[in-house]
């Protein structure tokens, strides 16, 4: 064989290797969305094996659907409905007890700014109906009677109500808990890179998978501007963190020029007026959910004070006048100040 043939063969090998390297797509990334818990739940997962990712995502959705049946106050057979219908409370599933325990803790720490017993108040305003209305003061007083951070108590899986008419509503925390459980299921299936997003409340597991455009990197999360529909207020980058935003622009109606939104101050039963939006970065979505609501009700000063009790939690508050307030270490997550 002429001596230049090995040269050609070598060149062939190098070219094939280069071509193969260039054509490598990186990890597979699969994204599915479903309508569950009255919102859009989106799961993105990255990894090498698409079939395994599909199985993991299906299992995560199944877990969210299971928890929806347990925690929704609109499902007559749920733990929450049973508690609301009972005079004194009752035994609940371990998952429900976990949600109630976390909710009661935040209710206590926030001095009642977060409240699990506002079911009657929320029904009164009717934000989930076709025509929400502003209730009169008497109706608000009746709906708030007996509510508060001590209105419920928990002993193991036994939930006790202090008043028979209390209506339980875990809406401010159940969605976050379901996202946390979905992430746990994805981890059990060996997934190391994923995002579970339920209507803007999300957990980012690991890093964003590699794509041809970018290497593996932290997840970048845009935060909705509360007054400019198409604008992003800030972008943060995170891994293994929950990002939760509560705002007065999510669900609202206007009457006689006044905006009425769905985040209520348990003190008076009216929409809380101190903030436009609150974003919380936390270890879990359930905690982030509860704290976002509590801080929204408390306002910037008392809200940031509350966050000091949670060392792993950071927050960004847009006050009612549009000014920004952040917890001390918020800047470590910022991409664009």
């Amino acid at each position, binding site marked *: 064989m002429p001596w230049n043939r090995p040269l050609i063969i070598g060149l062939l090998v190098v070219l094939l290797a280069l071509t193969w390297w260039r054509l490598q797509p990186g990890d597979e990334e699969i994204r599915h969305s479903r309508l569950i818990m009255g919102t859009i739940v989106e799961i993105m997962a990255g990894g090498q094996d698409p079939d395994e990712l599909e199985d993991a995502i299906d299992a995560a959705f199944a877990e969210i659907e299971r928890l929806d049946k347990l925690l929704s106050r609109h499902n007559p057979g749920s733990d929450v409905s049973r508690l609301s219908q009972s005079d004194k409370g009752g035994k609940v599933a371990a998952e429900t007890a976990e949600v109630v325990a976390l909710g009661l803790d935040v209710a206590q720490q926030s001095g009642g700014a977060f409240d699990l017993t506002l079911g009657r108040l929320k029904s009164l305003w009717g934000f989930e109906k076709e025509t929400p209305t502003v209730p009169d003061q008497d109706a608000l007083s009746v709906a708030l009677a007996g509510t508060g951070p001590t209105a419920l108590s928990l002993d193991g899986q036994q939930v006790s109500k202090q008043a028979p008419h209390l209506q339980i509503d875990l809406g401010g925390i159940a969605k976050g808990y379901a996202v946390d459980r979905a992430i746990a299921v994805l981890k059990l299936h060996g997934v190391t890179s994923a995002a579970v997003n339920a209507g803007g409340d999300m957990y980012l597991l690991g890093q964003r998978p590699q794509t041809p*455009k970018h290497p593996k990197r932290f997840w970048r*999360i845009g935060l909705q501007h509360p007054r400019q529909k198409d604008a992003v207020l800030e*972008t943060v980058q995170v891994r293994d963190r929950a990002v939760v935003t509560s705002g007065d622009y999510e669900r609202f109606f206007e009457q006689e020029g006044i905006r009425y939104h769905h985040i209520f101050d348990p003190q008076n039963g009216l929409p809380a007026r101190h903030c436009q939006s609150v974003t919380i970065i936390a270890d879990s979505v359930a905690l982030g959910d509860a704290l976002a609501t509590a801080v929204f009700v408390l306002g910037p000063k008392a809200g940031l004070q509350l966050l000091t009790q949670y060392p792993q939690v950071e927050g960004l508050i847009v006050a009612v006048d549009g000014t920004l307030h952040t917890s001390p270490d918020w800047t470590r997550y910022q991409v664009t100040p």
Partner: protein
Amino acid sequence: MKTPWHFMTPGDWLIVLFLLTTSLAGIAWVAAAPGGTRVVVTRGEQILFTAPLDQPRSIDLDGPLGQTHLVIDEQGAHITNSPCPRKICISMGPARHTGDLLACVPNRILVHIDSPADEEAPYDLLSR
């Protein structure tokens, strides 16, 4: 002294040329493969409709309550008519950024803005 290239026959040169051409063509094909940003509409697990975001059109999408009317124009993809009771899907306005979602929960319609994998968006997800 003769260099190694002096020992290359015309057939060898043809092989080298073929390899170079096919490698470069493969790379160019992959780079050019993705299309533009797309609108993807699903109902349950079923994809009802996909279309480029930059081509204006409108379509009626069947759901359990009736027809949801989707318009794609210069503002993005937006729902302009829906049989659902509260019309929240209409008030959501247009979706035009990668990852944006619109939903009509009662009519089980989900609209999603998708982009090619190699098109870098300013953020991965929107918290709101």
